[in-house]
């Protein structure tokens, strides 16, 4: 079988927008890539797939899944066939994300200071104060350059008509950027010459941009700031990413036990004694960051770090308390935030969201549970979710009861079909559902978004859950001019 036959045998899912194939054939931005593979034989595709798996294993590109209290290292499944996005579409996404982040950042500044948005009745106070990730400790804390969301990952999906929706904002410690970088380095090897020939926009600037922002935050105190990346340790599911970023930026990868606070200043324990730390890119969640303020049983954080931060002696990235802005119930208000703070219409749409604390919306949801996705407002990674059309009666019943019991903890959304993209599975090209997580970096000089981001794929047939912990994988994302 050659590639033409692969393509001919590729059947799109009915009612689903396919990234590559439309009624008239192949979409224009896939043309060049497709033409290069006219004569590729079936076994060559198989060999490329094998090579990709081998490269991932050799390079230790893994994530950790927790099962029965034990961490199991797994290769992050990778599909060799890239997802291609045309530049014009990307420009639209980019401007939409920039607008959204601008509003979210102002929201965080506002909600932790004057709270105009609450006073003006745009967002109910009860919604904010009942959010478990709203940190009263962050009230009136001076945040460097008023930037809260230094690193964000915005999850986008496409509905059946191809229009983009924001599914989630990840403003705390979004992960996946290392897979974006590794996917590209694997693509170079799988498809020689294709990246320059397709004029794919590069992603390799990401570590430099991130480092530039981190250094800019430290420059308030010293001309040569010490920047570190704080990891929960080798058993964290994103540890590979932590090491990759630390290595690419040439900064120390520290654990909580490597840091100590003295006189409201943070130091790391080195072989030459204590060394002052100016900027911490932390990948430890808020609740574990300082056992003196948050969870007292946390072994991952650093006692006293909160006060060092509050005094302005150390910059922590992302800021603490961002969880209030990416809470799934607050998400429903982001379009209103954009209108309120920026006086603009949102460029990127939200998925329609039903707020369970609203009685009418709750009643509607419970009546139509079969056609809804129900999510817990404070969970991520695809956990704590119900997909109505595939759930059993018992699961529907149990979720309905839980929603009635604590409505604030849930939101519901209609089931969005998610676009599909071709994946090489079992020797055939098959459509699988995808989303897109572009990564944005906000610094004193503005917002930078690396073109592309991470395309996550639901590798199981029929599934719309793309999370790696739930059987998802990823593919390289090419933005082509």
């Amino acid at each position, binding site marked *: 079988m050659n590639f033409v036959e692969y393509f001919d045998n590729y059947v799109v899912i009915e009612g689903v927008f396919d990234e590559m194939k439309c009624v008239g054939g192949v979409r224009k931005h896939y043309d060049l890539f497709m033409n290069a593979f006219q004569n590729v034989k079936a076994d060559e595709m198989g060999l490329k797939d094998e090579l990709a798996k081998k490269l991932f*294993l*050799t390079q*230790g590109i893994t994530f950790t899944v927790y099962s029965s209290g034990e961490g199991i290292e797994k290769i992050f499944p990778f599909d060799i066939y890239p997802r291609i996005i045309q530049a014009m579409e990307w420009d639209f996404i980019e401007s939409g994300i920039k607008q959204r982040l601008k509003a979210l950042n102002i929201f965080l500044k506002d909600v932790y200071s004057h709270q105009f948005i609450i006073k003006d009745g745009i967002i109910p106070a009860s919604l904010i104060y009942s959010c478990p990730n709203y940190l009263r400790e962050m009230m009136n804390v001076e945040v460097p350059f008023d930037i809260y969301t230094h690193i964000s990952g915005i999850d986008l999906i496409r509905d059946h008509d191809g229009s983009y929706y924001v599914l989630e904002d990840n403003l705390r410690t979004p992960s996946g950027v290392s897979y974006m970088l590794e996917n590209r380095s694997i693509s170079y090897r799988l498809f020689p010459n294709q990246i320059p020939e397709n004029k794919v926009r590069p992603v390799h600037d990401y570590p430099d941009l991130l480092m530039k922002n981190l250094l800019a935050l430290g420059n308030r105190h010293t001309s040569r700031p010490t920047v570190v990346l704080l990891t929960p340790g*080798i058993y964290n599911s994103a540890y590979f990413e932590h*090491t990759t970023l*630390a290595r690419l930026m040439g900064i120390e*990868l520290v654990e909580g036990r490597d840091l100590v606070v003295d006189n409201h200043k943070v130091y790391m324990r080195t*072989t*030459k*004694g204590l060394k002052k730390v100016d900027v911490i890119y932390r990948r430890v969640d808020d609740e574990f960051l300082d056992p003196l303020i948050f969870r007292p049983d946390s072994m991952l954080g650093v006692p006293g770090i909160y006060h060092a931060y509050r005094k302005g002696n150390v910059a922590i990235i992302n800021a603490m308390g961002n969880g209030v802005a990416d809470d799934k119930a607050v998400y429903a208000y982001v379009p209103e935030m954009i209108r309120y703070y920026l006086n603009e219409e949102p460029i990127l749409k939200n998925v329609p969201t039903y707020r369970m604390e609203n009685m009418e919306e709750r009643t509607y949801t419970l009546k139509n549970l079969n056609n809804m996705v129900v999510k817990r407002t404070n969970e991520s990674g695809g956990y704590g979710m119900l997909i109505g059309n595939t759930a059993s009666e018992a699961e529907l019943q149990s979720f309905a009861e839980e929603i009635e019991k604590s409505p604030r903890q849930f939101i519901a959304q209609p089931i969005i079909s998610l676009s599909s993209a071709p994946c090489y599975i079992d020797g055939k090209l098959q459509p699988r559902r995808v989303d897109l997580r572009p990564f944005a970096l906000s610094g004193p000089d503005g917002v930078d978004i690396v073109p592309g981001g991470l395309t996550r794929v639901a590798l199981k047939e029929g599934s719309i859950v793309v999370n790696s912990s739930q059987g998802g994988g990823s593919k390289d994302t090419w933005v082509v001019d």
Partner: protein
Amino acid sequence: MLSRVAENIFWMSRYMERTNMQLRILRTYYIASQDGVPFVKWDDVFRYYNQGIPAEKSLTANEVLNFILFDKDNESSVVNNIFKARENARSAQDHITKELWQCLNDYYHLIRDKSLQRQLYSGDPVSALDQLVKQCMLYYGIVDISMFRSEGFNYLNTGKYLERLLQSIDALTMQISRTNGSIKDSMDIVSWRYFLVSISGYEYYLKSNSGTVNPGLIFKQVLYEMHFPHSIAYSIAQLDRYAQRLKPESLEESYDKLEFSIGKAAAILKYNSPGTDIGAQLALLQSVESNLLNVVQVFNEYYFGVTA
């Protein structure tokens, strides 16, 4: 450098050096057993690698090798050494090169490969051991070619030479005890010969001593020969060399302690001449070993922040 990372690199290196020496000793031992020499006792080997606990039943060479190489329940098995080396490398990934990390990662996948275990069990164990030794050599090559000569490299080398010293002393002590430090029959000659092979010193010995196997000369080579990379004197000199490079990155007190402890071990070696008396030989080895353990203690206390 972070104290934790320094410790991780130090231990990664120790586990790899231990693996290399273990593999070479096992390889030589297995070949000797195929050569039909009577001093090879697999039950003793099992007991040695099982913290002194004998096997419940008599075991074949392949069973013992399987236990030492692949048994995850055996604390000192090679698979566990490699696992620990890799875990330490993971924690220090930002201070070692990507190539080095990938080499250890490959090693981890190699030793977990079922076909290698099958080869050991029902094929040719020497080929299986050769594959593992080759991966060790790859590790050393990558360290040499790719590792930047910074603090991490110095911890890597201090760990390597400390482990080599402890392993060499252990191997020599066992050999002296086994043969009483002498040659009573032709089998003792074979035994000393295999001992030299296991520590990669046979060819050098032949060149230096015109083929005569003499335990006194072997003892001298293993202790004092500066051209022999597994000798105690050579390894202490290398340990001292890399420790000195740590000076600019050390607190004054820490370095003083380190310099003193290494100097003391070197002085004991240098200013003792036990001759052919086995008791004196063993006492000297023991004294050097205990001083080297002090060096480890100094690293723990003053560099890695480990409290006893």
